[in-house]
């Protein structure tokens, strides 16, 4: 295509693309983000391509490969438009019958339709599925419609119209005022008002400035940024172009992506090339004389590089060490120049605010948290996936209405939000409206949006130990409170989970937590104790049980549990005996089996293979076996 040389040409391009698309015909949309590919979407794509070619149906059926549709539990899935029929967990062998029945004869195949876990009803249409119904998919809806490798698809969805509007007559001050009035706050975790940050950076006097997109999504359990970059990279690029214009003096932007996201890097690269070719990046953007370009920088596997000052050190080609703030990056950032850094989801919100207006944006949400937020709903929940919800929705609605409740009918215990910097919110606080401020009051944070659901089989001390192991391992070692403090906390927690906890350990943990929080240099250390503090606040009795009774109530901590076979349930099927890696199970066919506790390594294989109907292998407190 030709380079666009005037803002008005974006609209013309959009009209041209829409006019060129066939009004009828069916489109099969295949969800193929990293999760989809891991579940086999590539085989589905191939099967459709082969079958359509073989039967010469190219003009009747089109196939679109998109980023992830969010309902990861049901991958690989497809949606058939125009009707919006949703088919789940497909296998390539099912493709011919989908073409025969659904695409050519308009008949729905009941076996492929998702069944709701709560009410048992089959929902053939995507829009009716309870998982989607309560969501507000401002950012993620495009993942149904856009082939991320096609800039035309993005433009067809009104993409780059916000850039056209900004460059077509808005001043930088107008843009900043618009973002400020929208109430958008940083989606990376801390919730700093985006417009205010831009204004600070604009006010910093310097010949050169930079903007950065932080895509170093390191929080374990959060992957919305990956989904946005894989599924709709142009929305982030468009947001950055607008930001660069508003801040001024910025000819170079960076997107810092973690290396664990190869597909995101690939799609971003394709999108950047296409935007350059269309005259939306590079010199003289849309013929307005405005220059701006973006470079991808890949991380190299260091969690701390998600911290803004560390991230900049990493772009400069150094170790990702954080530094003291202030001065903040808006004054003194990359190579000492004023730098504005926002997270992926924040950037992706910008085109929406400009195109649909600040009032439209600010109508959704709570008083101090506006718009939507994407959460990744994972752990012991039925409907795992990415959910985009209005700010202010309650935890109960997310976990039960959207998430379909807890797996295997277990009891809901807590939700961990905000990753290693966040905390555990107990089941009693289910009706809390989710926004930056209420979560902070509960001792946690919105953070990047990970929501890990925990049930009665999750040990909260083990979870705290898990996070401390994580932060201890990822601590860069520059400052003492974080380097040594997290280590000490991890050691105490490990001791407790091994049944070696002592009187006074809880107090020691609390004291250390305070020191690490107050004394650490950067956000990593300052927030590292949160998982311990919130679990102590809400689940103190579990700590006490580990320390005093040497008992793990959830039967997780290996040193405190034992696997035993209940004689009245065991049917003697030999399954556990065959699978036991150390030969610790004795018993003959149709006779009750016994676990030899002296040989058992507590790997849990027997528990896993024992048929669900029988459930003869159970986990008990190790003390109980001593009694037996």
């Amino acid at each position, binding site marked *: 295509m030709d380079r666009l040389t005037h803002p008005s040409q974006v609209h013309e391009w959009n009209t041209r693309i829409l006019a060129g698309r066939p009004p009828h015909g069916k489109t099969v949309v295949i969800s193929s983000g990293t*999760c989809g590919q891991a579940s086999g979407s590539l085989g589905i794509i191939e099967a459709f391509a082969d079958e359509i070619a073989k039967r010469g149906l190219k003009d009747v059926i089109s196939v679109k490969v998109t980023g992830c549709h969010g309902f990861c539990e049901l991958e690989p899935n497809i949606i058939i438009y125009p009707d919006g029929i949703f088919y789940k967990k497909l296998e390539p062998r099912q493709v011919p019958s989908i073409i025969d029945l659904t695409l050519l004869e308009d008949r729905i195949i009941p076996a492929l339709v998702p069944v709701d876990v709560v009410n048992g009803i089959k929902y053939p249409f995507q829009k009716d599925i309870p998982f989607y119904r309560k969501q507000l998919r401002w950012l993620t809806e495009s993942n149904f419609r856009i082939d991320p490798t096609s800039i035309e698809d993005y433009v067809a969805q009104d993409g780059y119209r916000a850039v056209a509007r900004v460059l077509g007559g808005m001043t930088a001050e107008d843009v900043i005022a618009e973002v400020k009035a929208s109430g958008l706050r940083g989606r990376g975790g801390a919730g700093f008002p985006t417009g205010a940050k831009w204004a600070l950076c604009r006010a910093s006097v310097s010949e050169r400035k930079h903007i950065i997109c932080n895509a170093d999504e*390191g929080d374990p359990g*959060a992957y919305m940024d*990956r989904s946005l970059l894989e599924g709709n990279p142009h929305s982030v690029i468009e947001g950055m172009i607008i930001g660069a214009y508003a801040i001024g003096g910025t000819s170079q932007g960076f997107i810092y992506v973690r290396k664990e996201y190869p597909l995101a890097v690939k799609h971003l690269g394709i999108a950047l090339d296409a935007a350059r070719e269309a005259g939306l990046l590079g010199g003289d953007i849309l013929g307005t004389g405005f220059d701006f370009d973006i470079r991808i920088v890949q991380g190299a596997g*260091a969690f701390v590089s998600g911290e803004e000052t560390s991230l900049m050190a990493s772009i400069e080609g150094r170790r*990702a060490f954080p530094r003291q703030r202030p001065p903040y990056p808006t004054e003194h950032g990359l190579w000492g120049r004023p730098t504005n850094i926002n997270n992926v989801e924040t950037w992706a919100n910008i085109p929406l605010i400009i195109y649909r207006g600040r009032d439209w944006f600010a109508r959704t949400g709570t008083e101090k948290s506006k718009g939507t937020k994407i959460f990744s709903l994972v752990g012991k929940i039925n409907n795992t996936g990415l959910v985009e919800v209005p700010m202010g929705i309650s935890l109960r609605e997310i976990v039960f209405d959207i998430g379909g409740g807890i797996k295997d009918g277990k009891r809901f215990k807590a939700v961990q939000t905000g990753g290693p910097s966040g905390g555990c919110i107990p089941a009693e606080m289910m009706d809390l409206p989710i926004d930056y401020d209420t979560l902070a009051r509960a001792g946690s944070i919105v953070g990047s949006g990970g929501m*890990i659901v925990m049930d009665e089989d999750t040990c909260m001390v083990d979870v705290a130990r898990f996070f401390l192991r994580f932060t201890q391992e990822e601590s860069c070692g520059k400052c003492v409170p974080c380097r040594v403090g997290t280590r000490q906390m991890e050691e105490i927690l490990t001791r407790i989970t091994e049944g070696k906890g002592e009187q006074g350990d809880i107090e020691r943990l609390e004291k250390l937590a305070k020191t690490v929080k107050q004394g650490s240099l950067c956000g990593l250390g300052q927030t590292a104790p949160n998982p311990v503090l919130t679990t102590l606040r809400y689940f103190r009795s579990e700590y006490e049980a580990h320390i005093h009774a040497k008992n793990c109530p959830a039967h997780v901590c290996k040193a405190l549990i034992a696997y035993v076979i209940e004689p009245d349930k065991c049917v003697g099927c030999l399954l556990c005996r065959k699978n036991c890696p150390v030969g610790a199970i004795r018993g003959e066919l149709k006779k009750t089996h016994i676990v030899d506790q002296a040989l058992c390594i507590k*790997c849990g294989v027997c528990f896993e293979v024992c048929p669900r109907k029988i459930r003869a292998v159970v986990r008990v407190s190790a003390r109980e076996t001593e009694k037996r």
Partner: protein
Amino acid sequence: MEKILSRFAPAQKELISILHAVQAEYGYIPKEAIAGISRFLRISEGEIFGVLTFYKGFSIEPHGKFLITVCLGTACHVRGGANIAAELERRLMIKAGATTPDRKFTLATVNCLGCCAIGPVVVVNGTYHARVTLKKVEGILAECRDPE
């Protein structure tokens, strides 16, 4: 090596990108490459070594024929990821981070691959295995043993 370096400007900001390129080519960062980068960027070998060992994504040793990565992110953890790692350690008779003496397997762990919904996740040479159970571990290893 010359060919790799010719794609970059001789500036420190390129260091991490260069290291990525070298690792993509050789599978690890050979000693000679560090010397080459040092001459090219005019920074000391010590500093380059410091940077590359800071980041977990770089290795100074070649890994085995099959690189098995177990995700230990939170979602995988609550679904038993640590048990999967322990089982692999037991079967391969190496600790996470090590390579088997026959250089066939390297076992690595990662703190989140961002596909939490399908955890526990194990990646073998770039192929993702979803919802791994202790029982599936044997099959995953068996696949590696098949002739290519």
